[in-house]
């Protein structure tokens, strides 16, 4: 397919959507599927057909809509009315009232059971009102299994623009101008990373999409891969063009079979349409993407370990320098970005860097996707401008703590992050502010805890995770995480003394500073941050000397 044919496809897809009176999306993200959304989808499709409405109303499976624990969700467009907990029985009410009579079913609206007055247009609900969707835009509104649906929302237009109206240098400059930083957690400036790889001269370079989302409590990448896989392919292809790579790998967790299936399907569709492969859109640029399935090792989120894993080896990290930008996959210059970072590339190119940088804070531009979970009323997937406060996220978007209990802490950054206590609820969620509190942005897991959570147990839980996930190569992480875990267990069991606590603290700083890679380097963070904000909980468990 050349670029003119692409334009024609896009126009055709847009035209088709204009002719439709309504579009109904049934959320087929992993969460909603497990609550039975596929049956709802099937029944709804049959009903529309039986009633002969298929030319007016299109029913499609879509990616994640956000409020996962209200699922299965059904969205009625263009009114943007979301129905919650839809099953094959109460679906009839939606059909009779919403579809036949055009009247919303009040008591099935999203949050109808918890809000005094639920909203017919979901975008007016506080859950969505404070959000700004860039990476997740279209996710939940389109069918991730149909490339035409992506065309209808302007899909692959950014790739066309990059290939035909921009030089690789200009693409990089646009990404730099956007000030976007790596969304995998470390927050390294993406544009700078691209420029570094671009500058290395090599006949072969690689692009890797890191979808080894291993933090317990995080499902941002999964939702994007499941809900809008073409966006990632487009972002990777633009990156390949910018840095001069002809091959990309998407490393996706083995625990995400649906994401793998949809991504592989998207690769096939893109290849069929000439959006991957040789001479993309008729240009001299060629690029292909392959999926690599993770095999259950958290450490493979670390760049050098991920590379070893793609090479078919144990996922043990290597000391940096040399950085992958210089010597990565099979020793070649390699660009590694996270799923969410790639998801933001097409919009940045389509609009421009400055447009993106206008959102967010001075040092953290753009938006961030968070996965809300734990003791929060409305858990699920959200995207907010950088700098939104924790209070806004937990109490306005998330609807506060379950059962009206008292907020105790929010855990960000998973096993590499830390806890933010109630006195810092007004912290702005950006890279620097979270780091200054002893936590990290991380990939976006945000777990809310109430007074029933024991912070020593939380620290022990994460240390156990790091101990199990340590690759075992370097001494501080291999032995240190085990020692720290045992000491935390001893404290939790009420058998430890002040000396144990002192040793634990000394070890934590040692492991943080001497470990070979980021896993060991951040493994003590949950411990150090709970010590910083909840030291009394540790001290109350310490045996007082006789």
């Amino acid at each position, binding site marked *: 397919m050349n670029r003119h044919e692409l334009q024609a496809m896009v126009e055709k897809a847009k035209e088709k959507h204009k002719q439709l009176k309504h579009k109904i999306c049934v959320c087929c993200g992993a969460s909603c599927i*497990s*609550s039975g959304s596929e049956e709802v989808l099937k029944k709804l499709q049959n009903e529309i057909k039986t009633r002969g409405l298929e030319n007016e109303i299109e029913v499609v499976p879509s990616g994640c809509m956000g409020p996962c624990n209200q699922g299965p969700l059904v969205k009625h467009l263009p009114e943007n009315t979301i129905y919650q907990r839809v099953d094959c029985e109460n679906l009839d009410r939606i059909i009779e009232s919403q579809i036949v009579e055009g009247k919303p079913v009040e008591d099935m609206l999203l949050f109808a059971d918890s809000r005094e007055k639920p909203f017919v247009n979901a975008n007016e609900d506080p859950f969505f009102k404070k959000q700004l969707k860039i990476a997740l835009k279209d996710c939940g509104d389109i069918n991730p299994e149909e490339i035409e649906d992506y065309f209808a929302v302007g899909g692959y237009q950014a790739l066309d623009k990059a290939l035909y109206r921009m030089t690789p240098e200009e693409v990089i400059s646009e990404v730099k101008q956007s000030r976007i930083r790596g969304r995998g957690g470390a927050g390294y400036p993406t544009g700078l990373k691209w420029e570094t790889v671009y500058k290395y001269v090599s006949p072969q370079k690689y692009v890797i999409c890191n979808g080894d989302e291993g933090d317990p409590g995080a499902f941002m990448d999964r939702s994007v891969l499941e809900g809008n896989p073409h966006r990632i392919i487009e972002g990777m292809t633009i990156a390949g063009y910018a840095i001069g790579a002809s091959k990309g790998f998407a490393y996706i967790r083995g*625990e995400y079979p649906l994401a793998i299936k949809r991504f592989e399907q998207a690769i096939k569709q893109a290849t069929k349409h000439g959006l991957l492969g040789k001479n993309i859109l008729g240009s001299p640029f060629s690029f292909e993407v392959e999926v690599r399935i993770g095999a259950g090792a958290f450490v493979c989120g670390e760049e050098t370990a991920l590379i070893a894993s793609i090479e078919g*080896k144990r996922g043990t990290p290597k000391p940096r320098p040399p950085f992958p930008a210089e010597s990565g996959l099979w020793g070649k210059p390699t660009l590694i970005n996270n799923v969410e970072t790639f998801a933001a590339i097409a919009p940045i190119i389509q609009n421009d860097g400055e447009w993106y940088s206008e959102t967010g804070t001075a040092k953290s531009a753009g938006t961030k996707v968070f996965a809300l979970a*734990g003791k929060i009323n409305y858990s699920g997937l959200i995207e907010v401008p950088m700098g939104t406060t924790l209070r806004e996220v937990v109490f306005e978007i998330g609807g506060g703590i379950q059962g009206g209990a008292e907020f105790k802490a929010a855990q960000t950054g998973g096993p590499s992050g830390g806890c933010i206590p109630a006195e810092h609820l007004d912290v702005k969620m950006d890279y620097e502010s979270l780091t200054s509190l002893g936590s990290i942005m991380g990939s976006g897991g945000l777990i809310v805890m109430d007074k029933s959570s024991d912070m020593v147990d939380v620290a022990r839980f994460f240390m156990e995770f790091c101990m199990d996930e340590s690759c075992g190569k370097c001494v501080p992480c291999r032995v240190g995480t085990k020692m720290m875990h045992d000491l935390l267990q001893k404290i939790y069991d009420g058998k430890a003394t002040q000396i144990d606590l002192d040793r634990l603290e000394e070890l934590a700083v040692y492991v943080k500073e001497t470990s070979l890679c980021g896993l060991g380097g951040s493994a003590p963070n949950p411990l150090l941050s709970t010590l910083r904000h909840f030291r009394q909980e540790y001290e109350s468990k310490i045996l007082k000397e006789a």
Partner: protein
Amino acid sequence: MTATHHTHHHAHAQELSKTDPRVKLIAAKMKKENHKPDALIEILHTAQNAFGFLPKEVLNFIAKELHLPPSRVYSTVTFYHFFSLKSKGEHTCLVCTGTACYVKGAQALLNKIESQFSLKPGQVTADNKLGVQVARCIGACGLAPAVVIDNDVHGKVTEEVIINSINEKIGTI
């Protein structure tokens, strides 16, 4: 039912048969990957999907075909938690112990399973009918606590639901 640490099946102790469809599947995958050692993990995925776990004979077959030292194959297999050297049981119950599920009581579910079936995570019943595993987060945090029985995800699971679902599975054989 009593729990045992499951060792290799006797059925797999002998040589692999070239006509075994599962072996053919692995051979086809290796051919597709041009017998590249780089593809070891992809091939192991195929092998585990075919056999349910990775018997030593299968590892030996792969090592020989890819011209890889046995220890290189074994070291890779044992690094990744996805790969198992022993049978996981005809039916599997996987309890998510990610942070959200942990906060919402995954441990209580495990305790219940242990009291009901005398199975700890990683163990298989003596008759190989049921195996219990834990996952570090299946990404269904909005449905915590989550459990996967065979391939079905169950969300917001209670102790009663999990026991009934398991009994349904193992009772239907």
